[in-house]
């Protein structure tokens, strides 16, 4: 069955309704004064649609980071075209921004963790009333809250990775690009990352993850494209039959009846405080599930799309605070 990435460049057919990140026949050559030019990418086409999580895998030096830097508008391709939402990436980034986790994470070592996240939230355009909440939520979600007063230079290994993820999610962007988020992650952080990806998955959001860990990437993403020495070795193969089944993640908050959630939504993840993240293939299955929950005696308090939930929570916290 042809997949979206098999379909190739923009305008070609495919099952993805609205492509958000689209690289078409992209090549990148780095000039060198001392040696011959180095070809980092050679005719790579790739596509991540709205609501999808795409993966790029390959060994070290395969060109993954170059590909991500091009997708994030930080490098210009030598040939080929790159589009985010149909426009040139740099223009898109200056207009909307992307959640980008570079590898390695470069932040001034003298900044404290919470200060670094606050600054980056301000630069991302998080409204002042929400900044504190968003920063705290990101720190809690990534297990950095206890380290919030530490200087960035004191964070090593896994904690630094988590800071990289936290700075990426501190604002609510439609495009998320993560470079090697799995590198050196322990089981606990990996579990956090899995939950995070589930929570971040949204109708209008495209997520692109690069990693050497193909197996984990296959678990996290909808399809993985394998590249090596700058060339596509295996185009993305869709893990699920259609992208329709990744149409939405919702947060369901119950007044009571939480014990029925797993019976109705087997993939539900508890987020605490009687709130669950559930992934459904659209509004019809969501409504069917909610009806079944009600039939079983559960009392619903709220249902929100996952990516809107953070702002709603922030608003509630601020309203309570004022």
């Amino acid at each position, binding site marked *: 069955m042809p997949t979206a990435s098999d379909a190739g460049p923009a305008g070609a057919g495919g099952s993805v309704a609205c492509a958000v990140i689209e690289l078409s026949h992209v090549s990148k050559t*780095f000039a060198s004064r001392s040696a011959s030019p180095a070809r980092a990418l050679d005719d790579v086409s790739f596509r991540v649609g709205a609501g999808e999580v795409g993966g790029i895998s390959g060994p070290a030096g395969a060109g993954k980071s170059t590909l991500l830097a091009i997708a*994030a508008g*930080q490098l210009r391709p030598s040939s080929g075209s790159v589009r985010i939402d149909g426009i040139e990436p*740099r223009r898109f*980034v200056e*207009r909307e921004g992307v959640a980008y986790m*570079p590898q390695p994470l470069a932040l001034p070592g003298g900044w404290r963790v919470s200060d670094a996240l606050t600054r*980056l939230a*301000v630069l991302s*355009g998080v409204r002042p009333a929400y900044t504190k909440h968003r920063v705290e939520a990101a720190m809690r979600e990534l297990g950095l809250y206890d380290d919030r007063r530490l200087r960035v230079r004191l964070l090593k290994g896994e904690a630094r990775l988590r800071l990289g993820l936290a700075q990426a999610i501190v604002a609510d962007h439609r495009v998320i690009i993560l470079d090697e988020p799995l590198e050196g992650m322990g089981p606990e952080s990996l579990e956090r990352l899995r939950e995070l990806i589930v929570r971040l998955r949204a109708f209008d959001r495209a997520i692109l993850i690069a990693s050497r860990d193909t197996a984990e990437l296959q678990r996290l993403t909808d399809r993985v494209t394998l590249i090596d020495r700058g060339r596509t070795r295996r185009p993305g193969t869709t893990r699920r039959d259609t992208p329709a089944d990744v149409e939405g993640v919702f947060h369901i908050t119950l007044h009571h009846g939480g014990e029925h959630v797993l019976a109705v939504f087997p993939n539900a993840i508890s987020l605490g405080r009687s709130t669950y993240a559930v992934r459904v293939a659209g509004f019809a299955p969501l409504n069917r599930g909610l009806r079944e929950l009600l039939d079983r005696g559960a009392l619903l308090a709220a249902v929100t799309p996952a990516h809107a939930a953070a702002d709603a929570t922030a608003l509630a916290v601020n309203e309570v605070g004022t």
Partner: protein
Amino acid sequence: MKGRLTAYAGYQLRDYFAIRALPTLVASGLAAWALAAARGVTLSDLDPTGGIDARDRIQQTFELVLTSFAFVAGAAAAHGVVARHRARGYDRLVFSRPLSPVRYYTQGFVLAGIGAVILGTVGAEVYAVAVHPVSLPGVAGYVALAWLLVGGLAFLLSIVTAFYLPVLTLVLAADLALDYFAGPLSAAGVGPVAAAIQLALPPAHVLVTLRAPFARGLPIDPGGLAWPAGFGVACIVAAMVLLRRCPFRS
């Protein structure tokens, strides 16, 4: 975008005072000490009760300190704004946000200039209260002019090369040397060539000659200001154009 950057301005100004103010003061103090030592000025020469000659020496020493501070503060205003950012890879993280690199860096550079003017003016005020009156608007104006010329050039160079500080020092020293040796060069018959070279260099020598009128609050010839100010503005505009074309290192 403006709102985001306006909200971030406080951080940039705070960074100037937290990170660059002390090194600027130390570096300019050392530079002034070296220049004063080269001229044979000792602390005993700087006795305020020592009559007109002593007061004149004090005033000249203050102007020496002011010049050193203005040059160092001008260069420090651009230090780290682009080149260090790029060398450490902060640019990739910051400009994944919805920001224009041109506006971000220019705002940082302008705020560092404001910080330098505040620092210079406060220092001059302390000196005026403790030792001898000076023109505070003159000091502020002189530091601002140095920021425009030296800082503007440093801003441009920091976009072009990671070695902007040695290059900046070299071109400023070249201009000052050509000015210092203008007589012997003219006598050797290469005066016109030296003058032509000097036209392409930043007019640091003009900045040096302007220190006395600025510090003493004397009228300034606008024609004398035009060259350094114009050179600085041209550098800043060129820097902004370059940033627009190449916002990242590679």
